[in-house]
């Protein structure tokens, strides 16, 4: 319609057929847009439409007035339909490309973790023995050092802490290398979270952090490895505590949701969930400073840590991710618009073998 009005203003009736010009004007921007966006099929369709209009104009004898109206409608409307179809089709292609890339990245990550696991299993035994020797030696010396020699005692204390740290790292590494089977049982996720938070109660109190729980009532039971999932939530809450450091709030919310197409496009979601699938979502939000954008892409990498040396092994999130994915779920980390970080754990409700 707009094109027809434009045509009547620009060109008098006597000079050019306004209906055909209107169709042509409508086609040209659509053609340019399709060409610019790189949609070859749509470009060709529009090109054909434009050429057909030119032919109609140049050969009026073959296109009687009775046919011109419906043809014009066809040629004016068809491009828009083509664009809509083409855009949808190309959108699908792009989504599949993104999902393929996410799957490839996941595969690379998985292979990387497998390599670490194999290495850890081999190294752990060799490392734990010298650690034990050092620890025992420290204890022998500590008994011999006079109580007045504070500097030596402090030195021995630091050495013992170093051994503990090395042991924690080795222990974390070993989590990759074994026990990949889950001990699944029907469980209430809200109860699992509550038991997990009890384990970090003292850390919360010491840091003056308030824990706010919003458990969704009547959540369906899930098939969970209770021990491993507790490990996940302890890790996530501990991370939040470390991020806040002191005086703040951690909010844990659970909800029963249906997976939407938009939510499914998040990290690692596409290949795990179908649109419309029932999921239980746990959101852990903290009032800390949030996570710098550049860290978000590598936050699940083993040994990546923003914590000061000695405070974190850099394995907590990697282990948590592994456990959640073993449950067929997904974990995502991001920043809240109002500040602070948000970790989202998504678990399937209707897993094979899950209680109905």
């Amino acid at each position: 319609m707009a094109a027809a009005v434009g045509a009547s203003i620009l060109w008098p009736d006597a000079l050019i057929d306004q209906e055909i010009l209107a169709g042509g004007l409508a086609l040209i921007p659509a053609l340019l847009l399709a060409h610019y966006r790189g949609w070859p099929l749509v470009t060709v369709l529009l090109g054909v439409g434009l050429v057909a209009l030119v032919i109609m104009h140049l050969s009026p004898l073959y296109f009687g007035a009775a046919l011109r109206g419906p043809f014009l409608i066809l040629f004016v409307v068809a491009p828009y339909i083509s664009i809509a179809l083409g855009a949808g089709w190309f959108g699908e292609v792009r989504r599949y490309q993104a999902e393929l890339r996410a799957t490839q990245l996941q595969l690379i990550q998985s292979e990387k973790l497998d390599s670490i696991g194999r290495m850890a299993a081999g190294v752990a035994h060799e490392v734990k023995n010298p650690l034990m020797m050092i620890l025992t030696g420290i204890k022998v010396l500590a008994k011999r050092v006079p109580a007045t020699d504070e500097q030596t005692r402090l030195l021995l204390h630091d050495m013992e802490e170093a051994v503990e740290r090395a042991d924690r790292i080795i222990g974390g590494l070993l989590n990759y290398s074994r026990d990949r089977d889950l001990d699944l049982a029907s469980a209430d996720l809200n109860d699992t979270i509550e038991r997990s938070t009890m384990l970090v109660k003292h850390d919360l109190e010491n840091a003056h952090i308030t824990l706010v729980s919003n458990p969704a009532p009547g959540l369906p039971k899930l098939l969970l490895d209770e021990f491993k999932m507790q490990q996940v939530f302890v890790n996530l809450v501990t991370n939040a505590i470390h991020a806040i450091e002191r005086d703040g709030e951690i909010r844990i919310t659970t909800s029963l949701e249906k997976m939407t197409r938009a939510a499914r496009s998040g990290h690692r979601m596409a290949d795990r969930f179908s649109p419309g699938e029932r999921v239980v979502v746990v959101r852990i939000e903290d009032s800390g400073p949030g996570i710098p954008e550049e860290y978000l892409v590598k936050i699940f990498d083993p040994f990546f840590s923003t914590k000061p040396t000695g405070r974190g092994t850099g394995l907590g999130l990697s282990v948590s991710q592994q456990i959640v994915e073993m449950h067929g779920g997904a974990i995502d980390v991001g920043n809240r618009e109002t500040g602070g970080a948000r970790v989202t754990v998504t678990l399937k409700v209707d897993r094979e073998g899950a209680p109905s």
Partner: protein
Amino acid sequence: MRKRRILLVDDEASITRALAMYLTENGDCEVCVENKGSRALAAARSFKPDLIFLDIVMPDADGGALAAEIQGDPVLKGTPIVFLTALVSRRETGGTTMTIGGYPFLAKPVHPETVLASIGEHARERA
């Protein structure tokens, strides 16, 4: 009451040396060390320990098999055994009682205080 006799079987000589030193100096223990798994049975027969700390993975012997041999030996039968192992982490053992093949175990690196406590808990009492 006489000192408790503790046999340490581990192929890591540095561990047994340090642990023997700690137990001798800080516990009421008489300690015998054997760094060859294949000679552990003979050492046990000779020493007649009240408790054996036994490494599981040794180059020349399997701790599990050795424990079975000890329990099958007419002289040593009933001697308490505690495994020392690097196969599991201390965190995994937690506060729960865990056993391997029915024997309690301590996960390396284990605090010598914990070894002492284990002696108090498991060593055979003899007048």
